[in-house]
């Protein structure tokens, strides 16, 4: 495997991305970035199947518009990793800020610990080839999956008494699903969100995602393969259909 190592110490994000693009163009299969400290836009608009190991804390919009690569972050991430991402994977061995997976259309974002506000906001999907997945090992703040139009948000609540304690889950949701470990109090649901029973068929559907998440972070998937989840989906795919009257 062709590996390229880049020292990002004191490097601005534009030359850093240029180096990454050049390495990908030269056929690198793995790129290791050392001393990353707050550089935004890593992997922005990047295509291909390269695997990028990020040692440090990347800045905002990690993997924005990204289409294919995998980024493994050995650290926390700033806000909006996976913003409007198309394909590929982000694996974050830590926590991440607000608007994680904002408007994401495809690929996977796995966060080991917690995320901030508006996680998975306006995630959307088109048919089956583009179906985004966000998995959060810990918990998330308010407005999780707000305006969600497709895809899957899964919150496992590892090490928490309750997976979710913040309000506004799925407010304005009109597509996709939010699956949360254990019970979710009714008052935490946003406008337009509805609880559904989590079935064996649901478990079968998400089991590969749980296994894949556990594989990344060294958890035993058996702990999570039961039906102790709450599934939250849209009350309607047309939440605004009855809001207007013609002139």
């Amino acid at each position, binding site marked *: 495997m062709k590996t390229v190592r880049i020292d990002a110490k004191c490097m601005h*994000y534009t030359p850093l991305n240029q180096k990454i693009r050049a390495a990908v163009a030269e056929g690198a299969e793995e790129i290791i970035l050392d001393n990353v400290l707050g550089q*935004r*836009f890593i992997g922005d608009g990047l295509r291909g199947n390269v695997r990028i190991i990020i040692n440090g804390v990347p800045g905002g919009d990690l993997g924005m*518009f990204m289409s294919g690569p995998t980024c493994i972050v050995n650290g926390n991430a700033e806000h909006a990793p996976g913003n*409007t991402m198309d394909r590929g994977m982000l694996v974050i061995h830590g926590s991440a800020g607000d608007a994680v997976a904002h408007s994401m259309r495809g690929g996977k974002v796995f966060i080991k610990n917690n995320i901030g506000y508006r996680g998975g906001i306006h995630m959307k999907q088109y048919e089956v080839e583009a179906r985004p997945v966000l998995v959060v090992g810990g918990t998330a703040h308010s407005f999780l999956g*707000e305006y969600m139009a497709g895809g899957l948000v899964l919150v496992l609540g590892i090490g928490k008494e309750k997976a979710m304690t913040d309000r506004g889950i799925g407010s304005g949701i009109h597509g996709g699903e939010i699956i949360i470990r254990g019970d979710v109090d009714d008052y935490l649901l946003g406008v337009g969100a509805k609880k559904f029973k989590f079935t064996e068929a649901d478990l079968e559907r998400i089991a590969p995602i749980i296994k894949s998440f556990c594989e990344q972070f060294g958890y035993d998937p058996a702990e999570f393969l039961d039906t102790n989840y709450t599934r939250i989906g849209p009350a309607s*795919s047309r939440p605004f*259909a009855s809001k207007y009257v013609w002139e």
Partner: protein
Amino acid sequence: MTLGSVPPKFKVSIDRDQCMDCGRCIENCSYGVYRREGDKILIESRKCTACLRCVSMCPRDAISITEKPIDYRSHPLWTRETREDIINQARSGKIILSGMGNARDLPIIYDRLLLDACQVTNPSIDPLREPMELRTYIGKKPKQLKFRKTESGDIELDTKLAPNLKLDTPIMIGHMSFGAISLNSQLSMAKAVKEAGTFMGTGEGGLHKELYPYQDNMIVQVASGRFGVNIDYLERGAAIEIKIGQGAKPGIGGHLPGEKVNEEVSKTRMIPLGSDAISPAPHHDIYSIEDLVQLIRSLKEATEWKKPVFVKIAAVHNVAPIAAGIARSSADAVVIDGFRGGTGAAPKVFRDHVGIPIEAAIASVDQKLRDQGVRNEISIIASGGIRSSADLAKSIALGADAVYIGTAALIALGCRVCGNCYRNLCPWGIATQRPDLVSRLDPEAGAAQVSNLIHGWTLELSELMGAAGINSIESLRGNRDRLRGYMLDEGMLKILDVLPAGA
């Protein structure tokens, strides 16, 4: 129902002596006004929107349409419209939805601005004889130029220039999405802008593959719903525009109703068939001016700094400082959309009451950027109610680099401004996705009409400039000395920085 029905908006009648009973009115009316019963064409006036499709297709000029055939008791405060809106909401309890631009009878500043011409003391220029320079570059300009001497003694430009759009005429077509309008409308306009050497916007509906041949003349839009946005889309566009706001509905998002999301629209927007396409009011990754910088840079970084990025805002009260903030970000142009800007659908209360006139917004933004010494570094694109080459010339004299037209281009395609765009029934094949209606619009003919309009305005602009003794668009830009205000109040003259007529 205690409210009963309100009077029909229009009265349709057929001159039976003229009528040859061909039935074209029945075929053409998508609103169902006409039907045949026995040997008679019957009329249901209440369904009429005055789109005038039947009138334009009637071979005998046999149809007449009258507006407001039944009078209410006249009252200056409780107008017909206020009474009918109340009745509508008393019935429904809902938000009133409207189409096209602001429909209130408010003073139009353009009509109270007059252009100058040369007489004796300085000669006017004949555009037939002299070249008129209308070429406009939209994008970031350097603060200063640096040169260096090469080893052979030549002088070379050392400053790295930012990418700009090169326009042969300062008229572009604004963003109207595939979804809001038909593919044939977009194709007509795309062919026209390519032919005219200018650009059009995609709107927030993605870029249909049939438009790929015209991508070098397309500005791709990134709005809060991020519909159709991926790296391929960004790379195809000649420029990228971030839509923050729209003149017809400042401060709110957009909802494309599920009825309009057919298979092609769903594929282009990359959303499920028949689901509402909801653009939230804010971009949820922009909660501040600092975040805007980050979105601009993320787009530039994704496209390797090869594309200019525009930011479109609605003209609102504090438009000047907002535009100044945008000018300080990495944006290459600021687009200002005035309160008369059109739309496929907007809550009526927003369309008619929110925002400020584009004329005042251009003047105050241009002034603010000049005060801050950055006007030369960023372009200003004005839109929202530009109806003619006179409006265009006045916009540039007030300080715009170029304009976007929207409704004017649709009128060139057949639109009669009936304002029912949100019903998916547009009988001209423009604001509809119904295949039988869309096929009424031939993209080749449509392209010729839109291109004719752009050419006509361009010729008129050259003539207006020549008459004013100006041979280059740069000399008209921000040249408010060539404008005079007529019946404008002192406060407005001050904002516009224009002298009153006679001064």
